[in-house]
């Protein structure tokens, strides 16, 4: 556990000594804030955040591959992987440590975004349970995105390629839900059930169901497992 925290600590430091953390946070809060302001002033909608969560999850999709792209690819391209992996440390400890660092940065963004809920609260009477449920959904989905992004970073040594690969994988899970209306029968049902958007809908509406929780949890564990295997595989060419 100490080794995991050592890795996580190093990566979090790295985010904040480079422009990465600031750019990512500014992007997330800036775009969310802009859309929040537009929605509130133009539509005069109810005091809830359902629409806001849809915005947030889309911005999260744009942001997470950037957070994770360098985590494992850079170790490979600079050669520091050799120094790292000749230490008495397991691949799983490296992967989990790096994942926790990415998650920490993401959680900072989410905590900062609570300002939108507070603003709504100041002018209306929102349903806080619905806000909580939405945040659980955004957190879970973001965790899955980060795990997928980390996996793509383990696969290729180039940061940009890792980001693009991450986007491709995320878009697959994002868009596959559309097959539901186009394809009849079992395939359509499968497509609907593994769609990120479908699994996210309930959370945004304020419903906490076990199925989407299990879906996101499985996606996280599976992507992290694949990252560990990909990292092991790098050394057994």
């Amino acid at each position, binding site marked *: 556990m*100490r*080794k995991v*925290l*050592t*890795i996580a*600590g*190093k990566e979090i*430091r*790295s985010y904040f*000594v*480079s422009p990465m953390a600031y750019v990512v946070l500014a992007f997330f809060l800036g775009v969310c804030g802009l859309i929040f302001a537009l929605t509130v002033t133009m539509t005069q909608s109810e005091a809830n955040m359902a629409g806001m969560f849809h915005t947030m999850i889309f911005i999260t999709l744009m942001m997470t591959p950037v957070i994770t792209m360098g985590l494992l690819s850079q170790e490979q391209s*600079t*050669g*520091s992987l*050799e*120094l*790292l*992996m*000749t*230490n*008495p*440390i*397991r691949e799983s400890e490296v992967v989990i440590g790096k994942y926790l660092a990415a998650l920490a940065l993401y959680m900072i963004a989410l905590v900062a975004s609570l300002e939108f809920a507070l603003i709504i609260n100041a002018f209306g009477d929102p349903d806080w349970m619905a806000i909580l449920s939405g945040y659980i959904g955004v957190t879970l989905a973001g965790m899955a995105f980060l795990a997928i992004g980390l996996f793509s970073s383990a696969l290729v040594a180039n940061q940009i390629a890792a980001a693009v690969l991450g986007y491709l994988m995320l878009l697959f899970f994002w868009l596959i839900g559309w097959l539901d209306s186009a394809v009849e029968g079992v395939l359509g049902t499968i497509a609907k059930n593994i769609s990120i958007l479908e699994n996210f809908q309930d959370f945004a509406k304020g419903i906490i169901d076990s199925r989407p929780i299990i879906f996101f949890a499985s996606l996280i564990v599976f992507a992290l497992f694949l990252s560990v295997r990909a990292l092991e595989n790098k*050394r*057994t*060419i």
Partner: protein
Amino acid sequence: MIRCEGLTKYYGNHRAIADVDIHVSEGEIVGFLGPNAAGKTTAMRILTSFIPPSAGIATVAGHDVVTDSLESRRCIGYLPETASLYRDMRVTQFLRFCAGLRGMGGAETSERMEYVIDTCGLAERADSIIATLSLGYRQRVGLAQALLHDPPVLIFDEPTVGLDPNQIIEVRNLIKSLAEKHTVMLSTHILPEAAMTCERVIIINHGRIIAEDTPEALTAQIREAETVSVTLASPGESVERQLTDMTEVVAVRPQGGGIFHVDTAIGADVRAQIAEFVVGHDWGLLELRPVEMTLEDVFQQLTTEEEGVE
């Protein structure tokens, strides 16, 4: 402390090393010598569990590097060939990070950090960001992290690459002093380095070990003649013939500029006779010294012979 048997590694169809046997006892300092792409780095990467072997076994301090690699890695301090450090960290941050990876406690970390920073001459630059350090200093940081957890086995891949001559001497002396408490294996393609620092030299070429002995024994093995270099101020035209006519002399090879290399039978020391002979002929003796066969000659001979065999 280090034991390899039948170590073989294939990268696809390319065989990097074949049937490598290495035994290094405790406290020994062994040089791993070979031209570029001979398989030195591959062997060292297997020993440090960075890559698994295709065949054969390797143990470090009694721990198998494949099946018990966490333990074997704990016993090794490794300096990779290109010490790729995290460029955005400060030296002390980086060392603290390494200590964390090795599960060192707080008090131990502080104590050992002070020691390695001092030993590797990093005191002045301890708070510098690694990206701003010169190549020589980065190499020292690499050495410092290898020594940090006081491991019984040290593996250095080309430890003096990129250093200036003074730093090279410092690093060599450091490595020699380490041999008292550690088992050291270092790779190099610089022959005098192996001759100066190592008690035993393993020569590897095309992935196979082709010779293994002390530097002195290796040169003696290959030597076919004793050679004396004679420098004359005013050599006559018949110097070469007249020297060859001396009873103990096998051959005379003029080197130009009044320098002659005189080969004699193994074990013979004819310097006194040559001196007397030269002075007698009034050729103006400027210098007379035995020519040591360098490891370079041995190496060249071994590696070219090997190529001839193939």
